[in-house]
C-alpha cells in the first residue's frame, strides 16, 4: 500500500496543505527592543540600532510567539506547543533548512498579518533512525497587503 513509514500515518499525511488561522500581530517597540538587545545588535560598531525599525530576523517573533503562547498545560514535555500539528510519535524537534525572502522592515506600531501553512511532510532515515521533516510556509503581510517576509522553514522531528 503506502511506502514503509513508521512515523507518518495516512492521518498525519492528510495535514499537508493545512492552513492555520491568520493571526494579526501588533508590532510594539518593546518587542523590537527585546529582540535587538537579546541579539546584542546594540554592541555593534554600526550606528545605534533604531528600535522603531525591526532588523531582518525580527519576524521570528511573529512566527513563534503567537503559536507558542498557549496554556502551559498544552506544552509538550520539551516546552514546545504541539497544538495544531499532525499526530506523530515524536518527542524532540530541531530546526532544518530555512529560506527567507525579506520585504521592507517591520515598523513599531504596525499590524502584521501572519499566515502559515504546512507545505510538506516527509519521513526520512538518518544515522539516529527515522525522523520527520515538516516544512512550513509562513508569510507576513502589512495591512495594505505588502509582503514583508516569506519563510520556508523545515523542522526535524524524531
Amino acid at each position, binding site marked *: 500500500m503506502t511506502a514503509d513509514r513508521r512515523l507518518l500515518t495516512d492521518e498525519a499525511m492528510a495535514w499537508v496543505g493545512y492552513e492555520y488561522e491568520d493571526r494579526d500581530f501588533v508590532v510594539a517597540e518593546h*518587542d523590537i527592543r*527585546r*529582540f535587538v*538587545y*537579546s*541579539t*546584542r*545588535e546594540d554592541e*555593534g*560598531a*554600526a*550606528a545605534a540600532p533604531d528600535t522603531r525599525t525591526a*532588523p*531582518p*530576523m525580527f519576524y*521570528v*517573533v511573529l512566527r*513563534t*510567539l*503567537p503559536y*507558542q*503562547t498557549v496554556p*502551559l498545560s498544552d*506544552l509538550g*514535555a*520539551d*516546552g*514546545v506547543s504541539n497544538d495544531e500539528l499532525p499526530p506523530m510519535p515524536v518527542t*524532540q*524537534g*530541531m*530546526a*532544518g*533548512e*530555512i*529560506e*527567507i*525572502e*525579506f520585504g521592507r522592515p517591520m515598523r513599531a506600531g504596525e499590524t502584521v498579518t501572519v499566515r502559515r501553512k504546512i507545505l510538506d511532510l516527509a519521513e526520512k532515515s538518518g544515522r539516529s533512525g527515522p525522523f520527520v521533516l515538516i516544512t512550513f510556509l509562513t508569510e507576513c503581510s502589512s495591512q495594505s497587503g505588502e509582503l514583508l517576509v516569506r519563510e520556508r522553514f523545515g523542522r526535524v522531528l524524531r
Partner: protein
Amino acid sequence: MLAQDALEPIGTLRRKPGNVDLFAFSAAIGMAHRIHYDSDYTRNVEDRQDILVQGPLQAAYMCQLLQEWAAGQGMSVVIERLKYRHRAPVHVGTELVMGGELTSFDGESLRAECTVWTKVPGDETPRTEGTATLSLRPREER
C-alpha cells in the same frame, strides 16, 4: 558603477552567547523550548552535552555581520534573501565567529550574493551555513 574589488572582504563578527543571551532570546520570541534554558532536561532527557544556541539567534548574528560590513564602508545593506541550515549544534558559552564571502557583485545595481556561516575558532566546519542576496546602497539612503 562600483567594482567588486572596491569592496572590502566581509570580515568577521564575534559573539559568545551565554545563559542570559539564550534566555533573553527565547523570551524575545516567546518560546519555552527547554533545550535553550534547561540544562538538566537537555542533558538527561535529550541526551545532549548542554543547552543549545537557537538557530535564529545565529542567523541574527549573521545578519549583523553583513550590516557591520556594509557600515564599515560607509554603506547600508538590505538583505533580500537569506537561506541557511544548521550542520551541528552550538552549545551555550561557545565562542562563535561569523564570516562570509562575496560570490558575485553587480556594480551597476549594487546587488551581491554571498555565503555566510557561523564557526567555532579552530574548527573549519561551519556550525551554520548559508547564502544571502544583498542590495547595497550609500549610507544616506534608507
